[in-house]
């Protein structure tokens, strides 16, 4: 059995607001093994970005409630800020959503990188920039970008610069949060492939790749985890999740994806009726039951995580009965 890099057990993190608790990460458990790319997918508001934020920085009103998040055996939920800060970039690193907007328009890329480095206690000396240049080669960017301003670079180029910075200290674990969403299709392919290449060359260890786009995950993820309304839905090998989804939500999600080769004229696709529930003070029960065609009385209780086979888990009371009914 290969080494576990990240182990999440029954993690809960809520947004504590005046009206109550927004239960965005509610009892999530999974592991990421060494060298694995785990894709995390779900729709807006399912808690996937909150999960990333819970691991990196719990900025109020987001609060850790209970559970564990063990990175390399150490529970990062119990760590002091200083202790965790020491692990940043070295052991754990995030390529955040909206990073493209993080550049300072009046600073050259070189200054931007130097500032960021010193913020993390790294000396931005000659040696450091030698490594930066090495990595720029790796992502196919010319060294001259260092002396350019952000506005002179395209979105795809900026994203590559961000990737260079986030992975400069060869972190064992990288969280990539919607890194392809703001890019053109051609850059999407390049950036997603690049992340895989960084992993293949063992520059970075494991990756949690968060996206709303299942077709990107199909390209690069080893396993896929699906979340809905703050709950865990299903996790399994990419081909199993895409080819033989067992949870009614996963089924419906995959069935609603338009693919090249399918035209309305020939085959009308259907979406999922209704909208995700509000997570504010939400009670017991499967959170998909309001939109689920298979919802029954038992679904008023929160379904427990059940093992299907090694690596494939599901949280649904009725998955066995539903079987491979594709109309879910």
């Amino acid at each position, binding site marked *: 059995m290969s080494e576990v890099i990240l182990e999440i057990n029954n993690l809960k993190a809520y947004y504590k607001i005046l009206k109550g608790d927004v239960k965005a990460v509610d009892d999530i458990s999974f592991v990421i093994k060494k060298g694995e790319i785990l894709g995390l997918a779900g*729709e*807006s508001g399912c808690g996937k970005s909150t999960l990333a934020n819970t691991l990196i920085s719990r900025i109020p009103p987001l609060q850790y409630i209970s559970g564990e998040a063990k990175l390399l055996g150490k529970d990062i939920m119990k760590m002091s800020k200083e202790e965790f800060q020491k692990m940043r970039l070295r052991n754990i690193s995030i390529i955040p959503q909206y990073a493209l907007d993080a550049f300072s328009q009046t600073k050259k890329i070189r200054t931007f990188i130097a500032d960021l480095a010193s913020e993390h206690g790294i000396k931005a000396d000659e040696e450091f920039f030698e490594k930066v240049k090495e990595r720029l080669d790796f992502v*196919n960017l010319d060294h001259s970008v260092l002396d350019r301003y952000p506005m002179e670079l*395209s*979105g*795809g180029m900026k994203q590559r610069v961000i990737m260079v910075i986030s992975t400069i200290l060869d972190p064992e674990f990288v969280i990539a949060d919607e890194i392809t969403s703001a890019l*053109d*299709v*051609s*850059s*999407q*392919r*390049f950036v*997603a*492939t690049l992340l*895989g290449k960084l992993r293949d060359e063992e520059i970075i260890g494991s990756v949690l790749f968060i996206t*709303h*786009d*299942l*077709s*990107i995950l*199909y*390209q690069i993820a080893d396993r896929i985890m699906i979340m809905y309304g703050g709950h865990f839905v299903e996790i399994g090998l990419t081909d199993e999740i*895409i080819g033989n989804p067992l949870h009614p939500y996963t089924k*419906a*999600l*995959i069935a*609603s*994806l*338009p*693919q*090249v*080769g*399918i*035209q*309305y004229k020939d085959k*009308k*696709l*259907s*979406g*999922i*009726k209704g*909208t995700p529930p509000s997570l504010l003070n939400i009670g017991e029960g499967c959170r998909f039951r309001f939109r689920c065609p298979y919802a029954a009385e038992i679904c008023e209780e929160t379904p427990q995580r059940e093992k299907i086979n090694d690596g494939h888990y599901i949280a649904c009371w009725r998955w066995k009965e539903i079987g491979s009914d594709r109309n879910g």
Partner: protein
Amino acid sequence: MAEKNLNIMSVKNLSKVFKSGVIRPKYTAAVQDVSFDIKAGTIISLIGESGSGKTTIGKLILKLIKPSSGNIYYREKDIEEINNKDELKKYYKKVQGIFQDPFATFNPLYRVDRIFDMIYDSFGYDKKNKEERIYQVLQDVNLVPERTLGKFPHQLSGGQLQRLLIARALLMDVDVLIADELISMLDASTRIGVLNLLVELTKKNGMSIIFITHDLNLGYYISDESLIMYKGRLVESGDTKKIYENPIHPYTKMLFNSVPEIGYRWDPEEEFMPEQVIKDVEEFYKENAGKGFAMEEENHYVLYSID
């Protein structure tokens, strides 16, 4: 209801050059010599990446900006000649744009019923049928009027707001709807409903839709014809199936090659560089010098060279 096979909109040799800077101005050609027709009751996809000029074309048709050269005809009338307030209003009654961000479109201080009231009144329709019409268009977009009218925009979901945008267009009985990245903000499970709705509207009301998108899968799903834009130029156009099955222009090929598809994995051995396409396009134009924008097969055109 628009007549079948009528070119409801014709774009002829359209160009738009933007000038930036004052002392040493820089000129950027956002749209270069683009021509196409839209038939009544059809959906045409305008596909391209950022900076391809697709949104500029939408703005030109909506008269939000002026072309540098070329013409746009709506029902055979040059829209350049639509100038006075009344005529402009008439034009907007028939040609409408809906944009990416539904949250930014509606006045957040007004309830839906007031918003629709104002639209109805401002276009001077018969007051007697007002309520009935508003109910009708909401039902047409699968919204429950009773549950929608009393709400403020922020109380509705993204998908509901986009339906509301379409309902607004329906209220005005439009001929041409320009949908610019309409559903990019929506989740997979809700956007397919909006797409289906668009197709059904063209069938039922004879409306034409210009569907501006960067998403090839969505474009393929709903459109009869497609226009592929690259750096301000129309590089390939015609029947959607023909283009998707037999892409000729190197840029189109690159696009199809990079779109993530379920059931088909990117070749890990292939050295894929988005920048490579610039050279490929140059080569392609050189090889095909003199051919210009020409027919590849029936209803499938390619920009072979730009001489």
